[in-house]
């Protein structure tokens, strides 16, 4: 249990905690030795538990009356349910109804939230957790009302356990070898005592304390005399009887004053009253009031030797601890004593307290101690369990403090422990640890496999206590399977064989007839099955298993249980992306389509739609798109937009015949126009314009579609655009003569919004060009007041300009201006990006799919996106032995000159990296490992590079997700570059890496939404170079892996050192460098303004010294500088002769090294 925060404590989540407990446990024989209960129940002691302490039901008058009021489950319960719903699902980011359809998700969310609760490490608690999960799996049992409505079983259980927890340790059987007792253990209690208490209570309070007949049978707590805390009972009954909030507050104030006067310190209190008052304080705290005293008394209780007192003390501390330094010291001391006490109950209490508090201080104090307890040979099993889960909690809160180091192997070997409880507890810990550092825990794979196979192959009777409804140790199996999912398939053949065998057995068992009709049985079985299937999917290497899993899921697709159908659809979505099972998944298409149509639950339908999308390929695209289109008419509003996007993408991706594509999209707009985003219709237009063969058909179809009396605005947009461009293709037909077309469009004009009208105006002017005969009509339209005097500036301007243009310009000019649109450059469909964005985090299926299934060839957007298949890999594989030359030659043409291949040509060295770790060979490996699967550099990266020739700071790259800024400074042959990665979205990027094709220090793998990450590169120029280093950035945004390669704006001129010299000097040197290869000259047309000041600024930015009054012609510029590299210095002279009349330049560069002059010349030619 986490530390209860004040917000949560009034949440009544206690009730929730107990709900599944009640539902799951009732029929199961409790065979635990009593003392194990003690520790675990502590954690869940809440408001409700106080009733338990007293042996009463939770429903006081106030609530009961409500039930009776005819409002039924309204009021309080609704309220609870609401909060519970939030509590459970908010973590997950999915808001789903409480009667969740996705038990596994719920379990996961639940587990995350209450991970700390796993600390209840005793066997009992494990079973409790199990039963709770069972309740969750059962889905419909998940809210508290059910539990309460179910009557007394929960209360009964509760009473029982609290009774046990209240028993003093003296009355417990010795813990040496507790014999498991079959059958339900009912705490015994003297009859006389019970009557006495109830009588007293009845006298004091009113009828709410009279239990319903069914509850009278509950055995009252078997407490020794004086442990009943009647004061507490009376107090609670008073509170329950308060008619109003004010009355309650008054009563509490009174009680607080009373406790204060008792704690005043004049007289020493005995342990019993201390415990009682601390209990009262706790109760008051749980009612939502602040408690600022009593801590000291609670700490005193810790050192008591009585179990109940110690327990209450720990309870108070775990609930109410704050970081008061002096108290923490005392608490830590007490905990230390208990840990060292060798008394298992006390040790458990202490461990639970550590876990419940879980603060950093605790971690600091005990992180070293707990692993020792965990692996020590003489520790009791129950303590081991607690220790494992306690360690897990500490590891989760402060991973830096929990260092496993030497314990690693011994912890892993806990998997071999004889006690199943210990294994279950340890596996949670191991899973968590191995997620962080998989390598250290690699050995656990084989152990886990053997453990799993032992469980799977065991008969249901072998594991006695751990068989849950005839399923052997379901929770342990699930955890083992999940642990295995952290690792790739085992390499060892034997282990793998064994694992495959296990998985097969699990699949086989799913086929067997159920051993029980109870829902718990099938739930447990299916939980294992689904976990196994996700492991199979994770491995993705066993075609046989994948197909079997797929078939198994196929059976579930038609299962009666909605939850199963949901899960089956979801798992199948991931299966569809595997090459082995894709075909197998496809066989279920009919069922899935049927599910889409008939499923009653929207979330299931959503999954069905996802799966259809995932299983779509060329062979079934037409069918699937048609089905989705027809479903769209009745689809839920919440998923319509997504459906539209999916249809659009599928139609585009698998279009063989473009008339089909046009038909589909127009249909789409007709059916769900409101949900068609801009991107969708942009894309239609892009495609129509780029494909000559569909233009005529598109024009015809659009024309027909527009004839519908009411058509969607998006349709008008598409229609306007296409008719404006290609209206001539159908003008031959008298039914669609130009005037008819125009009139048709114009009839929609007044119904449209401003942007559409603007588009239509552009279409009209295009009409004038296409069909001169419509000119008069259109000019008339443009001239009318509603256009030319439109209050909207955009429309007015267009009307005025188009009118003028049409009346002034000659036909030729008009034809040029209004020429047909050129084809769009091929690029990734913007719709895909939109879908990815829409799905957000957690929606892995779609994006993964896109990665996995882009089979290229024939796809509309495949070619443009992929580019040449990683040329990087090719070069790197054929590289010469010299590592640094590889770096240089990565993506360049053959290496420049033999000199460049020398040992130290170019190396962008990174000082910040640990020095000795970067010998040449290391660079080689690292550099290429990371570049192997990196994307080719963006096409515009050269352009980007050129932007930075003359400047050092600016934005290197920007798209919707990421912005990369650069700041750099250079001195001589050294430089330092700061890269800023800005996350423009509100979602975090995970697994963020940025690698240079040399090596860099890794960057923080997480970039929070809206945050910026900085990377510093220290650069040394070893020799001259011509190609910029490549920067590869990869990260996961939402589910999708983003891969980006850019050229680092690092050019040779950055290492210039300006040299000032006189006219004579200059020309002397100029003459010296007269060898033909030392000179590079270029004559080129000016790309930018030829303003003198601008040129000056650019040349200064280049890094050379601009020499004034050197050249006889004042229009010319001359510069001089030295390129500083580690190997050598290269003197460099430049002369730029602009010719303003011809808008030309002549650029001459002379340097002592031919490659340098050539490279500089190329670079500079782009600049002017």
């Amino acid at each position: 249990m986490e530390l209860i925060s004040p917000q949560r404590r009034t949440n009544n989540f206690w009730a929730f905690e107990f709900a599944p407990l009640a539902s799951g446990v009732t029929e199961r024989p409790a065979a635990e030795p009593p003392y194990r209960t003690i520790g675990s129940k502590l954690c869940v002691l809440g408001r409700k538990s106080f009733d338990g302490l007293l042996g009463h039901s939770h429903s006081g008058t106030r609530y009961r009356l409500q039930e009776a009021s005819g409002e039924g489950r309204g009021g309080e319960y609704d309220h609870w349910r609401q909060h519970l719903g939030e509590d459970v699902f908010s973590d997950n980011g999915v808001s789903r109804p409480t009667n969740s359809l996705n038990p596994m998700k719920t379990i996961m969310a639940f587990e995350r939230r209450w991970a700390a609760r796993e600390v209840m490490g005793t066997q009992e608690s494990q079973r409790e957790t199990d039963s709770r999960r069972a309740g969750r799996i059962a889905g419909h049992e998940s809210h508290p009302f059910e539990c309460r409505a179910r009557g007394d079983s929960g209360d009964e259980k509760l009473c029982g356990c609290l009774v046990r927890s209240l028993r003093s340790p003296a009355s417990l059987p010795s813990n040496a070898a507790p014999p498991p007792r079959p059958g339900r253990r009912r705490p015994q209690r003297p009859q006389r005592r019970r009557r006495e208490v109830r009588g007293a209570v009845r006298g004091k309070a009113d009828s709410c304390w009279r239990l319903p007949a069914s509850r009278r049978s509950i055995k009252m707590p078997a407490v020794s005399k004086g442990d009943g805390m009647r004061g507490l009972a009376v107090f609670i009954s008073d509170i329950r009887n308060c008619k109003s909030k004010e009355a309650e507050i008054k009563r509490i104030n009174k009680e607080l004053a009373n406790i204060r006067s008792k704690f005043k310190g004049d007289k020493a209190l005995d342990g019993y009253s201390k415990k009682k008052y601390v209990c009262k304080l706790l109760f008051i705290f749980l009612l939502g009031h602040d408690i600022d005293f009593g801590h000291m008394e609670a700490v005193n209780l810790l050192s008591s030797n009585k179990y109940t007192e110690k327990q209450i003390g720990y309870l108070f501390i775990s609930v109410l601890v704050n970081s008061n330094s002096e108290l923490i010291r005392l608490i830590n001391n007490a905990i230390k004593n208990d840990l060292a006490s060798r008394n298992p109950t006390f040790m458990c209490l202490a461990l639970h307290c550590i876990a419940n508090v879980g603060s950093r201080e605790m971690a600091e104090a005990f992180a070293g101690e707990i692993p020792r307890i965990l692996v020590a040979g003489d520790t009791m099993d129950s303590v081991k369990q607690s220790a494992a889960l306690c360690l897990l909690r500490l590891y989760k809160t402060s991973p830096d403090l929990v260092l496993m180091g030497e314990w690693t192997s011994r912890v892993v070997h806990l998997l071999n422990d004889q006690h199943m409880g210990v294994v279950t507890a340890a596996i949670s810990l191991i899973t968590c640890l191995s997620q962080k550092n998989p390598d250290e825990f690699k050995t656990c794979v084989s152990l886990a496999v053997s453990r799993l196979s032992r469980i799977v192959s065991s008969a249901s009777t072998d594991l006695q206590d751990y068989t849950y409804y005839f399923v052997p140790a379901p929770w342990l199996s699930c955890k083992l399977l999940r642990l295995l999912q952290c690792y790739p398939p085992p390499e060892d053949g034997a282990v793998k064989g064994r694992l495959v065998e296990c998985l097969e057995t699990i699949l086989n068992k799913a086929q067997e007839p159920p051993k029980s009709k109870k829902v718990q049985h099938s739930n447990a079985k299916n939980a294992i099955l689904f976990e196994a299937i996700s492991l199979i999917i994770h491995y993705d290497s066993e075609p046989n298993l994948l197909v079997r899993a797929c078939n198994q899921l196929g059976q579930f697709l038609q299962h009666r249980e909605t939850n199963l159908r949901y899960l089956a659809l979801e798992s199948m979505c991931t299966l569809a992306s595997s090459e082995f099972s894709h075909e197998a998944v496809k066989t279920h298409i009919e069922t899935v389509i049927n599910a889409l149509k008939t499923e009653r639950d929207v979330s299931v339908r959503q999954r069905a739609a996802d799966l259809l999308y995932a299983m779509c390929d060329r062979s079934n695209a037409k069918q699937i798109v048609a089905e989705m289109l027809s479903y769209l008419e009745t689809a839920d509003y919440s998923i319509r937009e997504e459906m539209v996007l999916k249809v659009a993408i599928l139609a585009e991706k698998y279009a063989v015949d473009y008339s089909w594509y046009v038909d589909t999209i127009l249909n789409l707009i007709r059916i769900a126009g409101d949900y068609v985003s801009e991107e969708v219709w942009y894309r239609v237009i892009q495609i129509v314009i780029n494909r000559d063969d569909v233009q005529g058909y598109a024009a015809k179809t659009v024309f027909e579609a527009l004839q519908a009396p009411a058509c969607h605005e998006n349709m008008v947009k598409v229609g306007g655009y296409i008719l404006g461009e290609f209206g001539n293709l159908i003008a031959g037909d008298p039914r669609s003569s130009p005037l008819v077309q125009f009139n048709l469009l114009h009839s929609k004009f007044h119904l449209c919004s401003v942007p559409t009208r603007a588009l239509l105006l552009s279409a009209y002017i295009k009409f004038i060009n296409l069909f001169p005969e419509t000119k008069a009509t259109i000019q008339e339209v443009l001239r009318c007041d509603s256009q030319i005097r439109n209050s909207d500036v955009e429309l007015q301007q267009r009307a005025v300009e188009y009118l003028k243009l049409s009346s002034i310009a000659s036909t030729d000019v008009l034809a040029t201006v209004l020429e047909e649109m050129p084809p769009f450059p091929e690029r990734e469909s913007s719709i895909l990006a939109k879908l990815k964005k829409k799905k957000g985090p957690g929606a892995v299926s779609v994006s993964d799919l896109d990665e996995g299934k882009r089979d290229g060839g024939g796809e509309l957007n495949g070619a443009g996106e992929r580019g040449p298949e990683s040329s990087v890999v090719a070069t790197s594989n054929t590289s010469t032995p010299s590592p640094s030359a590889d770096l240089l030659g990565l993506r360049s043409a053959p290496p420049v000159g033999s000199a460049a291949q020398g040992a130290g040509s170019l190396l962008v060295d990174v000082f910040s990296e640990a020095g000795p770790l970067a010998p040449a060979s290391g660079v080689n490996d690292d550099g290429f490992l990371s570049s192997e699967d990196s994307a080719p550099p963006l096409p515009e990266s050269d352009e980007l590079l050129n932007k930075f020739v003359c400047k050092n700071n600016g934005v290197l790259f920007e798209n919707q997700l990421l912005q990369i800024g650069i700041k750099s400074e250079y001195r001589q042959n050294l430089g330092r570059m700061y890269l800023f990665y800005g996350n423009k979205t509100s979602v975090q990027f995970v697994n963020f890496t940025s690698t240079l094709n040399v090596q860099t220090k890794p960057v923080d793998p997480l970039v929070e939404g809206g945050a910026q990450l900085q990377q510093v590169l220290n650069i040394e120029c070893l020799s001259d170079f011509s190609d910029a280093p490549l920067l590869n950035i990869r990260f996961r945004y939402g589910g999708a892996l983003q891969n980006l390669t850019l050229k680092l704006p690092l050019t040779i001129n950055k290492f210039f050192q300006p040299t000032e010299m006189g006219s004579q000097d200059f020309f002397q040197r100029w003459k010296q460098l007269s060898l033909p290869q030392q000179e590079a000259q270029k004559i080129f047309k000016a790309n930018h303004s030829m303003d003198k000041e601008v040129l000056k600024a650019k040349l200064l930015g280049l890094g050379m010294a601009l020499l004034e009054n050197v050249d006889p012609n004042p229009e010319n510029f001359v510069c001089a500088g030295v390129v500083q590299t580690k190997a050598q210095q290269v003197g460099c002279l430049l002369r730029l002769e602009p010719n303003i009349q011809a808008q030309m330049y002549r650029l001459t560069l002379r340097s002592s090294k031919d490659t340098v002059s050539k490279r500089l010349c190329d670079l500079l030619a782009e600049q002017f």
Partner: protein
Amino acid sequence: MIGGLFIYNHKGEVLISRVYRDDIGRNAVDAFRVNVIHARQQVRSPVTNIARTSFFHVKRSNIWLAAVTKQNVNAAMVFEFLYKMCDVMTAYFGKISEENIKNNFVLIYELLDEILDFGYPQNSETGALKTFITQQGIKSQTKEEQSQITSQVTGQIGWRREGIKYRRNELFLDVLESVNLLMSPQGQVLSAHVSGRVVMKSYLSGMPECKFGMNDKIVIDKQGKGGTADDAGKSGKQSIAIDDCTFHQCVRLSKFDSERSISFIPPDGEYELMRYRTTKDIILPFRVIPLVREVGRTKLEVKVVIKSNFKPSLLAQKIEVRIPTPLNTSGVQVICMKGKAKYKASENAIVWKIKRMAGMKESQISAEIELLPTNDKKKWARPPISMNFEVPFAPSGLKVRYLKVFEPKLNYSDHDVIKWVRYIGRSGIYETRC
């Protein structure tokens, strides 16, 4: 306009539910219960917005009255209506309690039908309502009576019916004021105002025309200009400045605007003639002088002196001083000269009660408070000392100058009417910081 009206008991069960407009669904009932009555944090705002629906509520003892609307209504109107509704219910069956409401719900529905029409407030004058909504059930009325009711309800004077006859013509006039104060420990007035009401009970025959006069500064000044200079010559405080006032619907506002005279045809029975507020020259009946000393971390000494500040001949009643104690109080010893004092743990305060106290007297209490050391570093916030009392004069200084009755048709004149005037000043929020 009001879309619906619900009455809940303290548990949130709906006792009365009346929906006037279609835009209010049944779920509104639950929404208010869940979000206000059962809210985890106490809801202090009387207006709550839930899903674009506004709930206006007032609470009478344990009963919640909530008006619901989806429109942008005048909130003051809605509250005025709710208070009127409470008054009407009180007039019909006394105290508003769960039991009374349950016993009278036919009547309440009848009333709700009458005083709200499609969410628009109608006549809510008890006197008028009582002519046609009776608790005894419907007695068959003659045609004349029926038409009389119609004309009465729809006519010009909706608040009074024709043909009332009394043997003794009597008039009771109460000036009820509550005085609010916040004073600094040094005795500086930080804020003070008096809100007052003039409540009348009239038992007059026929259709009398009344005229009410008080020492309103504007009126006095106007008259002063007229020539009677001796008014100003008399003792300092003769006239009061009224900041704002509201009247019962029977008062002729046009006449008040032009002449500032209050003339009206009174309803029969009890009603509130006007409400007003003053902030200047308030007579503060009591002065509280606190003295709080913290002795170490575990002890607090408190001494409070109260001084009465009015004519020695008058007697203040029901005096109660409430001295807050810190939240970590573990024990209290109190000594007081007069009255009774007690530490009430449930309210975290020492409550000192005095039955009666004459003017120009003073009294004192001293207390020793023991504190429990806490690990909370927060200092005690020292809430103000508050006080309750009742005095037989108007702290605003308001005086009734005249109340004239004219009944031209019947043969009784102004001096045949027996008139009673009473002044009661009560404490509102009367606090002194310590």
